């Protein structure tokens, strides 16, 4: 279990994975709070759960499917009206790969 404190470096890595720009204060604060919350999680660390199946879902159902039938699509203009930026009926995004 992870009863070690979460480092500043790990906190930065997690923030990057989650694409959250954090300032120094936030990084420090979250490092401490995450450590405290995970310390609380130590209560399940000691449980012997070998042989217990993980519950992926409370529903015990399989094969929920629909038929292959076309349904109407949304109005493009209505959708693009909510876009932060658009051009030529497409969503415009900043360059994907940054400068080297």
């Amino acid at each position, binding site marked *: *279990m*992870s009863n070690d404190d*979460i480092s500043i470096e*790990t*906190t930065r890595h*997690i*923030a*990057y*994975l*989650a*694409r*959250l*720009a*954090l300032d120094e204060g*936030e990084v420090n604060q*979250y490092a401490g*709070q*995450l450590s*405290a*919350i*995970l310390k*609380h*999680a130590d*209560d*399940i*660390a000691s*449980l012997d*759960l070998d042989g*217990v*199946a*993980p*519950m*992926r*879902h*409370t*529903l015990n*159902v399989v094969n*929920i499917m*629909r038929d292959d039938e076309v349904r109407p699509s*949304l*109005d493009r203009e*209505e*959708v693009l*009206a*909510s*876009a*932060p*930026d658009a051009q030529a009926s497409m*969503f415009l*995004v*900043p*360059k*994907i*790969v*940054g*400068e080297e």
Partner: protein
Amino acid sequence: MSDLNFIEMSAVEIAAGVRSGEFSAVEVVTAHLDQIDKHEGDVRSFVTQMGERALDGAKAVDERRSRGEELGALAGVPVALKDNMAYRGVETTCSSKILKGWIPPYTATVIERLEAAGAIAIGKTNLDEFAMGSSTENSAFFSTRNPIDLNRVPGGSSGGSAASVAARFAPIAIGSDTGGSIRQPASLCGVVGVKPTYGLVSRYGLIAFASSLDQIGPFARSVDDASLVLDVISGHDGRDSTSLAERSYSHQPIDNDVKGLRVGVITEMLDGLSSDVENALNLAIDALRALGAQVEEVSVPAAKFGLTAYYLIAPAEASSNLARFDGVRYGVRVEGKDMNETYELTRGQGFGPEVKRRIMLGTYALSAGYYDALYGKAQKVRTLIANDFDNAYDRFDVLISATSPTVAFEFNAKSDPLSMYMSDVCTIPSNLAGHPAMSVPFAGGEGGLPIGIQVLAPSFGEGVMFKVASALEAAANYKAIPEWDNKGK
């Protein structure tokens, strides 16, 4: 204009009156809009008010009646909607800056069903940002106040919905409950709040927090009204794979005879209650015994691990569910020098501190090297909790506990995240197991503040759950009164 007091009427009474023509939907809606005009400035339960649209909707209901058309079960009944459900053409924000200005091009199934039954949406209510919180203080826009005591929180995350019903802005409201987000604010505001069995109500259009835990449910001022609303919103929806086929809830006049019913009091939920809450729970036990129920303590041992499991599973799912708020297709964008920086700035500035904290926690719980020890283990704990509940339900028809360990607290009382998380200790296990549970107002505690009793039942046990809640409601004879109507106390 009729001199009927519409704002104190139940949904059942309003629908009956509108259907029979005793009064019009426009009169009903106007009375509620007037109440909003008077007191919304103090309560602040709405992110978006829908007054004009509501009047148009009411007119449409009245016209349908004049044409002799059949009206639905909620004809002319105003309903407040938590602002995390998509409504075509109406801004939907999740009380987050990141979604400010988003106008959905589609409508949630639950809202479609309410409107098909004649209900009139009067506004989108405030919540803790993305439903993460227990006080509605995490709204990016403003805090909602508890109508019973304006210096206190309404609870959360569906605080705006609970407050709107307590304030008589609407007889019913809709919320969502991931770890107690309907039941806890219902308890704190002195109204009825129901989290149905997972899979009973479609989640299509509900902006997901934790998909395997989220469930939509009603607020009302009576058990009977809550039951009627659940009837309207439940039932299979082909657009939600987790909506169960052939399962729905049918409202019937509730027979509240609990004689001979076996009621378990959950041992693990007795610790840490404030003394007034403990007293109220004891009074509830006495009342049920007096009505002929067999009440005993029962242990659900794994329930004590619920909070831990929840604070791994819910943030993990949330970290993935909230990835889509990236400034590409909708919502707010903070432009950076490239896409990656745009993601980071948009999300860093668009989300509030609690949302970021949970995304961080969930990302960590799922990340390589920790998955088995954190998320994987939490899922196993979930199995234990479900098994322990099953054992309890072998011997008991329903279980009860307090809904919240305390009455409504003051603003900024819980600045430490862990102490805020503790507010949900009694409500979380039902979400983990997928079972139904509800809060029914039972007594006034410290300062006359409402205390709710939680009734828990096995999956699809809504019938027996409402029966016991109705018995408690009758025995309590307690009604939470808004602060402004209670000046002489």
